[in-house]
Structure formats: structure tokens, C-alpha cells
């Protein structure tokens, strides 16, 4: 349990290093969008880490960054095509933030700082560690925003034609709570993120003591 908490709080790419923030705030209007975006990043990170760790010896140091960006862009394009064909509603919600995974600092950051000087297996483990932490953070933001802004929690809606289920629940009885639309707007995204960061900081402070 302690290890789990440490993983969430001290090594989380989003909450601690503040990397990869654009998608974290833009698409997390529902819980579902949050974890699906996180998983997309995880998939791209996994494959780019594998390829980078395999060929980093061959690539000259001067062209490292452009070469890695091209590798990442290739995997993002593959993912884009797959999502466009199989889960069309999802590609509409993610919109430009799906191709924007290319410039997500987490992926390039891991490729430069970890995968390029490590072997394949540690790089895969690293991709899962970072990717799952990121997914967790995104789902948390999505959960808070959807609950406060819409009084629902969506687990499966956009991907329902793939799985065959729609799972969307109303949490509080609808006449007792008035959801605040602010949390679905950009301003609410910043606010949620700021409050979450503050709370996590406070928890970490106590932990150190």
C-alpha cells in the first residue's frame, strides 16, 4: 500500500513533474475520456520506448530529437488510423488531441532520458510505470470534473459499439444536487487541476513528516 501511494504521489508524471498537461486538461470532461486518453498515451509510449531502446546505438547524437519525434509520430499515426476505423465516436471526442500525443513531453522525455540508455525490458517496464501513472492521473481529473460538472460517471459510452455495453451512472439523485457546469469548461479544468495539485502537495508534506 505504501509503495502504491509512493508511486502515485512521488513518481506521477502529471502531478509531480507536470509533463503532458494539454491533453490532461482538454479531454478530461468525463472519466471515460480521461482513461482512454491515458491508455492511448501508454500504447504510444510503450512502442516508442521499445523502438528507441533498440536503435538508440545506431542514431547519431546530433539528430536524436528529430529521429525520436519521427518514431513517435509514426506510432501516433498508426493509432490514429486504428481509432478512426474501429471507434469513430472516440476519434471525434479526442479530436486534435490525438495527433497532439506526438508533442506530449512525457513520451519524448522518456525516450531521451530513459529508453535511449537502457535495454528493451527495463524500457517496457518504465513505459508501463509512467503510462499507468499518467492514466491514473487523467482518470482522477476526469472523475472529479464529471462528477461535479454533470453528476454522472461514464465508464463506457464512446466505446460502446466495440464492447456492446453502455455504462453511465447518475451518482446523486437528480433533484437533490445541481451540477455545476463550470467544471466542464476550461476554467473548471484549471481549477480542478490546481486544487488536486494542492491537495497532493499537502498529503506529501504530511508523509515526509
Amino acid at each position: 500500500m505504501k509503495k502504491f501511494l509512493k508511486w502515485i504521489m512521488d513518481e506521477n508524471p502529471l502531478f509531480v513533474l507536470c509533463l503532458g498537461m494539454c491533453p490532461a486538461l482538454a479531454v478530461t470532461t468525463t472519466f471515460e475520456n480521461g482513461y482512454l486518453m491515458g491508455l492511448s498515451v501508454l500504447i504510444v509510449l510503450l512502442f516508442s520506448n521499445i523502438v528507441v531502446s533498440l536503435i538508440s546505438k545506431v542514431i547519431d547524437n546530433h539528430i536524436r530529437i528529430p529521429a525520436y519525434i519521427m518514431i513517435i509520430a509514426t506510432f501516433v499515426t498508426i493509432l490514429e488510423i486504428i481509432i478512426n476505423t474501429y471507434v469513430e465516436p472516440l476519434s471525434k471526442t479526442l479530436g486534435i488531441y490525438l495527433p497532439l500525443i506526438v508533442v506530449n513531453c512525457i513520451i519524448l522525455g522518456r525516450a531521451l532520458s530513459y529508453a535511449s540508455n537502457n535495454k528493451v525490458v527495463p524500457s517496457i517496464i518504465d513505459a508501463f510505470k509512467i503510462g499507468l501513472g499518467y492514466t491514473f492521473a487523467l482518470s482522477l481529473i476526469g472523475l472529479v470534473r464529471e462528477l461535479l460538472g454533470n453528476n454522472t460517471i461514464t465508464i463506457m459510452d464512446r466505446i460502446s459499439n466495440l464492447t456492446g455495453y453502455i455504462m453511465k451512472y447518475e451518482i446523486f439523485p437528480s433533484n437533490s444536487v445541481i451540477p455545476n457546469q463550470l467544471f466542464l469548461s476550461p476554467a473548471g479544468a484549471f481549477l480542478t487541476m490546481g486544487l488536486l495539485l494542492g491537495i497532493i502537495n499537502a498529503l506529501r508534506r504530511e508523509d515526509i513528516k
Partner: protein
Amino acid sequence: MNLISLFITSILVENIVLTNFLGMCPFFGLSNKEKGSVGMGLSVILVVTMSSLVTYFLYYNVLVPSHTEYLKTILFILVIASFVQLLDIMIKKFFKSLYEIMGIYLPLITTNCAVFGIVLLNIQNDYTIAEVMAYSLGSSIGFMLVIYVFSTIRERLENAPIIKSFKGLPIAFVTASIMALLFTRYIGG
């Protein structure tokens, strides 16, 4: 849409940082320095406007006729990356004083989502060439405006009495939230 209103809208009401969350890393990373924010803003304006034009021509004259629209992600990032390199070399050679202001920020722009995002939005919204110019100029000016205003606010925040765990980034996010509220409510009264 009317060009002038598109221009003004993209600066204020639909500011890319505050409504589309593009260019967040420099927004929070660099914006605690007033000078840095101006340098970054200027470089973004230059790169965005130029690469919008280049990618627009490439998309409609190369990708669309050959039915390879799905390659746009790879092509655009390649254009931006090589463009930044080119600009870096050219400015270093011909405009020494300008290089001192924005030199260190140029390489960072390749991975700045604002540039890539605006280029993608140009295509997604089916803009004409005049609209592309208005939109990319407007939103990059908007980027510079917001990042500059934000940096001045953050300098004051450093000396403000804030709860310890909210110091730094958390309070910056809350500030950004209030700014977003103000900017997006510019429409009508």
C-alpha cells in the same frame, strides 16, 4: 466568418492557451520570468505563422491530391521541426540581437503543442488561406499576451501569503482558472 472578428476572437475569446490548453508547458514552465515570456511569445508568433502557411500548401497540394491525408501528423511535425532548425540557423547568422532575445527558446518550440495544435486546427476547421493567416497570427499573439500577463501576475504571487502546499504550481493553476473565466466571458455583455 469575417476576418477581423476571427482575428480578435482568436486573441481573446478563444485564446488557445485558455480554451484549447495548447502551449501549457511554456505557460507554466517559463512564465515566472517576464523577459522569457516575451522571447518565447515572439518565437511562437514567427514559427506559427510561417509553418501554418507551409503546411497549408503542403496539405492541399500534396496530401489531398494523392489521398494520403492520414500522413498529416508525420508531415506536419517534420515541417515544424525542420523549420525551427532553419530559423535557428538564419537568426543566429543575420539577426544577432534578435537571437539574444529568443535564441534559447527556439529549440523548445518543436515540442510546443501550440504550434502543432494551431497547424492542425487550421486544417480541421477548413479555413481558407486568408483565414489561416488571420487565425494563426491571432492565436499566436493571444499566446504571447496571455503568457506575458500571467508572468507578471506570477511575480506578484511569489511574495503573496499563500498556504504552503498551494505555493508554486497549484496557485498558478487557480490563477489560470480565473483568467480563463475572464477571457472566455468577453463575448457580449
